[in-house]
């Protein structure tokens, strides 16, 4: 059936015009016999499971573990990674009745899923009489937030394979390690599954939790071997060894067979060529999904947000007479029971389509699916490959379609499919030594076990460690006595530190009901300023709330359920100061810097925008206290020669306007022509004269006379004038450049667009008052993203130039330098000129 649709598409010129089609041939796999050293109970278990031979990479992993190495396995989705670690662990369990293993999964759902799979396999084995741990019902224990208190003591003492997550290790296990003394004494293996999800802030936290785990295991005399698995990323070796602070042996060659796979990059047709507007990725994806479903092809539809899962589900339901049992949503926020039900439905074919977020991306076992549709690039090559990897069964043909959205990233990919198919996927970056993260975990570590003057902690230098401990002592959290730092506070530090964010402050969202208040969620304190300022419309699980108050003293926002036809958009003002320059380098046309900055953000107001029309209903001023973000940044400063070059080419439009000598007279004529009435709101002039506005910005004309033509002029009241100026504000080349860099950089960094902020200054105070583009990290102190931008500057500039030149739009669109203003004037030309200068060296 899939074959039919593929062949009909391959003969459809309209379809082919908008797509890039890559075929990955089938691979028959590379198998081998069970390794000779494998304990016979484990062998029996495998045989009972119907496994007669192993994949080559599973054998390699076995050998590396047996040689005493830490191992990282980075192979494709569904290549039998779990068996890689289960094999040596079970082997060791069956030989040594005391040995323990700790399995760490990024989510509760995954831990439960893997536990069920392993239990099922072992229950087959328990029927075999030679199995030595047959009698124990407590072999595997899941220890997570859902584990009932009454069951915990038994799991602590009896479980030999403990399945948990980093958060639980952080808040419940390590701070109470004495209750686990026996477990730690006999800890032989630590398994970290799906480590590619431990990147960015989360990964930096997890690396510190592992440092603490090693410290505690060491206290009990255990030095467990680590086995890690990862989806395919560019640096599995680096990430793994940074996570565990030790060397690893990498296994990346998969020996598992796979069927033929079609990977199609699909670009929705252009609706408006001039503005570069294409049909929406979601609508096109829904159309394609319906086409597949009509032919009874099972599929997963990946979309980026939880909200979009529900919206897609509704749209699918309204378009087609689908049975709700056939088409399901899948995202975080669904109960585990419902999720299991959907997963099983996929496995046994009862569920035909699942609309999912990346919650389904992490190795949840759902078997092979015929087709995968991605509505928009999931943000990283690795994620795209992982989602696509869901398509196709071991010996059958599969289909993955990535439907490009209007963002520069998606459009870049469509123009450069090689990037997706031939490049290694992104690096997963972590920075375990991020000062904030480090300090948080030093508190926890000191609580768990006192530091002494000779203690080490990860790769932190002894001087740095001592300085930090001294600071904590001075603060009164630690007490130095007899060369040891003792915890000296009536506090449980792990409870205050979330692994999922860098800062620990959060604002509670309180909804006022007639029958009392209810907390519906939390927002981190920094985001609270722009997400839940008074007057903001906050969306939560289909419901709309109006924010009444935001109290930054008590960290609460009060909300009221409302039925509003608009959403709000904050207006923010950023200023950036340089704290210090860590590295700089001269490049053609300017200077590159990498250093620390202080970003001050202030909410100055917000817009109310109507849902149905996207019209700005109101523009409200509101001043909240500024928030400070100290972080790392990359900045590019154009030198005088470059600016001169641009001015000479007539495209440098940042100089102040000179309207000419005749301007006062022209202005009065136009006011008279317009009856001294604002041509937008109809207000009449009273005391002060109204403004006269250039419809097409003055800067864009070569001569004053042309700009000052009466048909380009209009009378506006000051309020409407400001709005008009905002909407037609010329996106100078600088703005275009910053838009482009900010949106393309994530491709190289394996981060989300929202992990970076961009800012530009025509007259940058910390760069000799030269025009500067600043890209900064949104995480306090940074996790190394901007260092990577600095190191990969040339590639970034080259691909930015390529993107602008390839883009089919006339003068800027969301897919390149940013959307043009209301009158259709963008900054494509200016941006191209700057990039031409910057990219010159690489070509010469």
């Amino acid at each position: 059936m899939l074959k039919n649709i593929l062949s009909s598409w391959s003969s459809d010129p309209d379809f082919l015009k908008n797509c890039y089609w890559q075929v990955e041939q089938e691979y028959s796999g590379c198998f081998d016999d069970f390794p000779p050293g494998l304990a016979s109970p484990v062998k029996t278990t495998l045989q009972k499971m119907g496994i007669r031979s192993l994949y080559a990479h599973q054998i390699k992993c076995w050998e590396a573990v047996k040689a005493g190495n830490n191992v990282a396995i980075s192979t494709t989705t569904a290549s039998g990674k779990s068996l890689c670690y289960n094999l040596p662990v079970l082997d060791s369990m069956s030989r040594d009745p005391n040995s323990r293993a700790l399995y760490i999964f990024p989510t509760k759902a995954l831990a439960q899923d893997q536990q069920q799979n392993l239990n099922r396999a072992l229950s087959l084995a328990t029927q075999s009489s030679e199995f030595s741990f047959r009698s124990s019902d407590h072999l595997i224990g899941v220890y997570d937030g859902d584990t009932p208190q009454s069951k915990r003591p038994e799991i602590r003492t009896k479980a030999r394979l403990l399945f948990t997550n980093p958060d639980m290790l952080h808040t419940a296990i390590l701070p109470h390690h004495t209750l686990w003394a026996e477990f730690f004494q006999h800890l032989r293996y630590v398994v970290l599954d799906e480590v590619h999800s431990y990147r960015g802030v989360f990964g930096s936290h997890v690396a510190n939790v592992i440092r603490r785990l090693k410290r505690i295991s060491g206290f009990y005399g255990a030095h467990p071997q680590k086995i890690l698995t990862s989806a395919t990323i560019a640096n599995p070796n680096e990430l793994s060894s940074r996570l565990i602070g030790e060397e690893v042996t990498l296994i990346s060659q998969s020996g598992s067979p796979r069927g033929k796979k079609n990977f199609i990059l699909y670009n929705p047709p252009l609706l408006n060529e001039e503005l570069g507007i294409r049909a929406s990725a979601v609508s096109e994806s829904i159309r394609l999904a319906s086409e597949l479903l009509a032919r009874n092809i099972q599929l997963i539809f990946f979309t980026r947000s939880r909200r979009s899962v529900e919206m897609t589900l509704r749209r699918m339901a309204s378009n087609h007479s689908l049975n709700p049992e056939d088409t399901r949503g899948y995202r975080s926020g669904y109960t585990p029971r419902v999720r299991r039900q959907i997963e099983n439905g996929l496995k046994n074919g009862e569920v035909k389509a699942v609309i999912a977020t990346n919650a389904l991306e992490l190795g949840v076992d759902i078997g092979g699916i015929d087709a995968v549709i991605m509505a928009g690039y999931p943000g990283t090559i690795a994620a795209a490959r992982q989602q696509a990897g869901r398509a196709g069964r071991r010996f059958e043909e599969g289909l993955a379609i990535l439907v490009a959205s209007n963002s520069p990233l998606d459009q870049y990919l469509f123009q450069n499919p090689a990037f997706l198919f031939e490049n290694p996927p992104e690096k997963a970056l972590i920075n375990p030594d991020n000062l904030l993260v480090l300090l948080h975990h030093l508190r926890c570590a000191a609580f768990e076990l006192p530091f002494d003057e000779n203690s080490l902690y990860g790769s932190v230098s002894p001087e740095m460690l001592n300085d930090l401990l001294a600071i904590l002592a001075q603060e009164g959290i630690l007490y130095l006595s007899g060369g040891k730092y003792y915890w000296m506070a009536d506090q449980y530090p792990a409870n205050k530190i979330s692994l999922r964010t860098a800062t620990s402050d959060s604002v509670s969202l309180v909804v006022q009901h007639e029958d009392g208040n209810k907390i519906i969620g939390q927002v981190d304190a920094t985001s609270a300023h722009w997400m839940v300022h008074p007057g903001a419309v906050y969306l939560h699980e289909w419901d709309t709330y109006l924010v009444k108050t935001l109290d930054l003293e008590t960290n609460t926002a009060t909300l009221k359920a409302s039925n509003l036809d608009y959403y709000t958009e904050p207006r923010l003002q950023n200023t950036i100061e340089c704290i210090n320059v860590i590295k700089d380098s001269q490049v053609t046309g300017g200077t590159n810097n990498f250093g620390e900055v202080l970003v001050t953000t202030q909410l100055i107001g917000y817009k109310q925008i109507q849902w149905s029309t996207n019209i700005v209903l109101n523009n409200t001023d509101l001043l909240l206290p500024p928030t400070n973000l100290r972080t790392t940044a990359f900045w590019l400063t154009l030198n005088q020669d470059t600016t001169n070059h641009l001015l000479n080419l007539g495209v440098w439009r940042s100089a102040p306007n000179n309207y000419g000598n005749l301007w006062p007279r022209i202005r009065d004529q136009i006011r008279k022509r317009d009856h001294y009435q604002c041509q937008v709101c109809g207000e009449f002039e009273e005391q002060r004269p109204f403004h006269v506005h250039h419809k097409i910005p003055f800067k864009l004309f070569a001569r004053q006379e042309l700009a000052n033509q009466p048909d380009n002029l209009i009378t506006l009241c000051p309020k409407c004038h400001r709005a008009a100026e905002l909407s037609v504000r010329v996106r100078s080349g600088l703005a275009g450049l910053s838009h482009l860099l900010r949106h393309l950089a994530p491709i190289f960094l394996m981060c989300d667009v929202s992990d970076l902020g961009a800012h530009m200054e025509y007259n940058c105070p910390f760069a000799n008052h030269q025009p500067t583009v600043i890209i900064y990290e949104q995480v306090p102190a940074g996790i190394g993203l901007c260092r990577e931008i600095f190191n990969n500057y040339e590639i970034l500039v080259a691909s930015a130039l390529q993107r602008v030149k390839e883009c089919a739009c006339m003068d800027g669109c969301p897919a390149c330098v940013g959307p043009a203003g209301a009158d259709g004037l963008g900054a494509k030309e200016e941006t191209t000129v700057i990039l031409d200068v910057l990219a010159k060296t690489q070509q010469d």
Partner: protein
Amino acid sequence: MDSSESLADKLKSLGVHLGLPKNYLPAAKLSHPIEQLFPNGYEEPTSFGEIFVVENTYSPNYQQGNAVLTSETDTLLIQKWAKLSATEPYRQNKFLFLDTETSGLAGGTGTYPFMVGLGYYSEQGFTVVQLFMRSPKDEPALLSSLSRRIEPFEVVVTFNGKSFDIPILNTRHILNGFFSPFKTLEHIDLLHLSRQIWRNRLRDRSLGSLEKEVLQMSRDQLETPGWLVPQIYFDYLKTGDARPLKGVFYHNEIDIISLAALMNYINNMLLYPIAENVKSALDMIALAKVFESLGLIDQAVLCYESGLTQGLPTDHFIHTLLSFAFLYRKRGNWEQAIKLWEKASEYGQPQACIELAKYYEHSQKDYQQAQIWAEQGFAFLSRDKEEHFKNRLLQKDLTHRLNRIKKKTERTSRHA
């Protein structure tokens, strides 16, 4: 990094709330050391360093409130309640009363006891020994002294020690690489027994409240409330000024004495419930339950009877009638049980009617009586305007029962 910027400044600009640096006042250490505060205190040497000890002995039969610290009493019932293995009563000098003062209430490995108070009976009377860490580094010495001092005892007695003091002490032993002596010691936690006995009468069953309400004594102004204790110790570590610790030592000492007094008080209640030892009818019926759980039915019956005759608030009265009836039913004394159920039914108690209906249906096969009682129960239930979940269940059960009884009545009449 900018070398001119200190790490602390950098952290501050990253938004870390470091708090104000607390000032050290080492001078005070010299002017108000702990040794001066307790002239009778002494330093006990151990192989891990010295530990500071304060010891006080109270004369035999010392009176704490309305309880006496007497060393001659039979504790077999409490032992039985705590499920200790011994079948003979321990001699009083085998009990060790223990209470710790800790650096926090959060638990986990970062919480440590800086003071361990011990109380025991000796020939001189009742001795309280307080082991105190002048610095956290004294911990190995404290634990070592504690292990040595524990040796002669068989049973440790605490108030909430099962979930607080003993797990913390076990943790501290593990952290210092020691074997915990508590693993081999029997344990009586009076918190749980106190909760059972005073649950009807006292809302707050903390040691302090029991002291006031049961032992009828009060502490003097030296007393330091428990929640202040960690901060006082931290301040002492920082400033060296031991004076505020006086209140902590007092607090701990009184806790130990009250613990021993409470043990005797409860023991007396169990030994002689009907003598004037049980002050309230509410305590009496709670005690009946304790006896019931211990399998001491005669004592339970006595307590129920005494409670009922002493007079109880109506809800307790009805509840007691039912409990008492169940006890009789369990022992096969239907006659007494029926009396109590009938009494309870006078107060509109549906459960009693159901029990009577059951009795007449199953034991007596008197379906007419059974129907009367079932209908009575139904009437009581529907009179209750509040639609409780439990009521609905009872109603369902009764409907079912009534139908069955009616069927049985028909069948018997047909046979007849």
